[in-house]
């Protein structure tokens, strides 16, 4: 027995020494990458992730194979918490989560108990304003009627963008409508609009709409970049703190469909991922493949720019955070 130890010990010593002494290889090399998606199969996030999985590998050192795994739950909050807590921080796992995750700890500190600044952003695909809409048959066709009338606005869950933006508009502009929660998705809300059960919805991007434009009124927009004709909703908020809070919430619209890496991922690895992402989003093959996802207008943002935007927004005072919580109540 002893002689075995006698032989094994030096072997172990050498092995562990080499493990400790060898710094991680200088050039980052990727083996296999898993993109985890915070939503179920078939949805928008799933589709863009599978699109990225087909192309990103070509731009990374080592040309890794990329696979997609769905980890749905609580509008991607579940996956975000897993990324912060337990996913390996070595570049082998990256995640596609809601852009709203960076302010989730502010709006819902109880459930989203993580440090939003720890997330490492790789890049985002879409930068698109969101709208408040009503159906033509509801008769709510001007901002004035939208603010003064009693009617119903549909939303999915309390943490969804459909609820957050409907509440932002209602509380920010002191509108009188009621928000109905519990719909299954935006298509479900649209159908209820057609049945005349509710009047409209908020927080949807124009490309999401399935019904024909002739049947809806666009009441107002969130975020910059909307067509000049429709009024900006947050611009009408008078109180400067509430205005800044609305700005914080709206800022997420610029970084729609982002990819993140776990906190603690080495800088070289994150840099390599960001570089590859930026190269991918201008690649002709990628863009050709992207057109198959329907009328999705890509206007990507780099990981560096997202980090700056997030850091900037999270510098706001506690009063702004409190105002943000009030706005989306």
């Amino acid at each position: 027995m002893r002689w075995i130890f006698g032989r094994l010990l030096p072997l172990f010593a050498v092995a562990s020494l080499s493990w400790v002494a060898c710094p991680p290889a200088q050039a980052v090399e990727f083996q296999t990458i898993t993109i985890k998606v915070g939503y179920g199969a078939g949805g928008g996030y799933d589709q863009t992730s599978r699109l990225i999985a087909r192309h990103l590998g070509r731009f990374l050192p080592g040309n890794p194979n990329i696979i997609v795994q769905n980890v749905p739950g609580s509008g991607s909050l579940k996956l975000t918490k897993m990324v912060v807590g337990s996913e390996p921080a070595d570049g082998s796992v990256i995640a596609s989560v809601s852009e709203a995750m960076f302010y989730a700890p502010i709006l819902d500190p109880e459930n989203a108990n993580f440090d939003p600044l720890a997330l490492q952003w790789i890049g985002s695909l879409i930068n698109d304003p969101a709208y408040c809409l009503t159906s033509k048959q509801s008769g709510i066709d001007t901002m004035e009627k939208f603010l003064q009338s009693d009617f119903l606005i549909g939303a999915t869950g309390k943490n969804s963008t459909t609820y957050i933006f409907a509440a932002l508009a209602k509380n920010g502009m002191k509108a009188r409508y009621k928000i109905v929660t519990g719909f299954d998705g935006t298509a479900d809300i649209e159908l209820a609009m057609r049945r005349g059960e509710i009047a409209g919805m908020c927080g949807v991007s124009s490309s999401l709409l399935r019904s024909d434009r002739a049947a809806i009124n666009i009441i107002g927009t969130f975020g910059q970049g909307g067509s000049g004709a429709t009024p900006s909703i947050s611009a009408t908020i008078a109180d400067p703190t509430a205005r800044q809070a609305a700005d914080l919430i709206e800022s997420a619209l610029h970084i729609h469909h982002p990819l993140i890496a776990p906190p603690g991922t080495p800088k070289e690895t994150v840099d390599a991922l960001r570089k590859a992402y930026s190269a991918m989003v201008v690649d002709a093959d990628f863009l050709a493949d992207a057109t198959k996802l329907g009328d999705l207008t890509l206007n990507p943002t780099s990981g560096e720019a997202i980090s700056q935007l997030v850091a900037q927004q999270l510098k706001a005072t506690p009063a702004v955070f409190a105002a943000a919580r009030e706005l989306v109540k």
Partner: protein
Amino acid sequence: MDLILTAIAEMAQPFRMLMLVIGVFAGLVVGVVPGIGGLFAMALLIPMTYNMDPYAAFALLLGMGSVTTTSDTIPAILFGVPGSVGAAATVLDGHAMAKKGEAARAFGASYSASMIGGVFGALVLAAAIPVMRPLVLYLKTPDFFAICAFGLSIVAILAGSQPLKGLAAAMLGMLASFIGIDSIAGIERWSFGQIYLWDGLPISLVFLGLFGLPELASLLLRGSIQGNAERPTYAGMWQGIRDTLREWPLVLRCSAIGSLLGAVPGIGIAVLDWIAYGHASRRPGPGPKFGQGNVRGVIAPESANNAKEGGSLIPTIAFGVPGSASMSILLGAFVIHGLVPGPDMLGKNAALTISMVLSIAVANIVGAVTCLLLTRQLARIAQVSAAILVPLVVTFIVVGAYQTNMSAFDFLLVMLVGAVGMGMKELNWPRSAFSLGFVLGPSLENYFFLAYQISGWSWLKQPLVLILLGLAIAGVVRQTVSWIKARGSTGALPPVLPDIAASSALTLLGLAGVITAMLDFPFEAAIFPAITAGLLTLFSLLTTVQTVLRWRKPVSPGAGMTPAGEWQPSDGPALKGNLTVLGLCLALAFLVLLAGHLAATFVFVAGGIWMLGSRSPKMALAVAAGATLCIYAVFDLLASQPWPAPWLAGLFKAF
């Protein structure tokens, strides 16, 4: 007519037919293997359709989606393990038939019912094309609530010989369905801070544990699925087909249930399955009682769940509102191929819509015929020794469960639910009632609050709501009257002491549920769980009292007493068998975590077969190798996904 001819001509192209057939075969494989459902497979297939034309793409996708419910009956009938959530109702009578040596007859009946149901669903879809949009707009949110409430009233029929237990089981199922983050207030209900539970208990896992594991224990005790040594022949299969044809009114009624309810968002395949089963059990016809191998109990759910595919396409095509979960994935395919759900699908793209109808119909026929051709081989499995079958089936259940979330909690949950299922099976708490409560709970709550938020209480005056709620109440009253009449004439009953323990435990659980719901949840999130838990307390308390009374004045177990419903007195040392099955699951779970799913499968199957008493080590190794290959083909090649690194690999990495 021109449109139909155009659609036929388009579909007749060899490549499109080939895609349809490939889709059918993929769907059959997906249906047989527990754990991977059509949902997941469809998400995998969608990227493959990017470069196809829309006809070929939808032929592939619908071909796959249409037949998973044909082949998922194979494990349901043979092992009592539902291949997908839509086969749970088939387990009760289908597996009972297999035990009696009627596996071939059950297969014949189920495939032919599946085929007729599927084609019927396609016809409903075709007939709905002109009136689709007004039809979908006609149903309002309160109607959906009333449909769910009507569905829940079926519990009364499923409640079996001890109705109080049935009602309590349904409440327990509903209570289990409320675990997770609720959709109204957005708060955690009974998730104990576990992220795993946020989205509730995964339904596929619950059904695997509830139905799959308990049957394995009795398989282990019997030695093989089929008790007698009669060799299965094609004659049994033809008898099953004749059964289906003879019961054609039932087949048509259940197909109608499947296709109509399939069109209602929120009523999934797991719900309409039980509704069809409950409907059929009202009139059991000749032959054994329901739950003991009545062929009508196989025909009803099988025709309903295949008819669903056509029905759930109706709202998808008309408005882009998915009628089922797999339809929401199919919507992704619409976008990719530049199709907009809505009027275009009924005008400009009508030929494509009709080709979908054809795809569903043809896929159902091809799928059923394929399965029928395999029947004799499959039915022979009923005579294979349990020493070989049990390790194999445990492997598919445990590995299939693990791939739901790739978390150790998957193992824990499937074993926990399995243990609950074993208890329910031994003590006559009907698992069917539990299932219906479990699948209907969330829709019931959600539609109620939607209806309430939209129109207060005034929706209660809508005509369709009144009719449906009236039917539900009438059904429950009628059933109650028949219980009162049948009082005192109960047949054999399970042992008293464990029964008292179980019902007291449930009483306490219900009480704890009421208290925690009232104290911890905001009002709107508390109301449904609190009422459910309250009813659970009431029903299980009454059961306890009833059982204690029975204990106080013992009736000698007369020889002439026959068991009723799902329950049968266990035919051996049930506790030992159940513990063995749970032990096997635990061992395999540990092996998977330690060495990964492939190595674990090999070691476990070989070891399991050897341990359970097979004489030939060579055969054990051969079966183990085959099982490992099979697992690899399905879970790594077909459904390629990242598996967590096993502990051993982590250990090696560290050095």
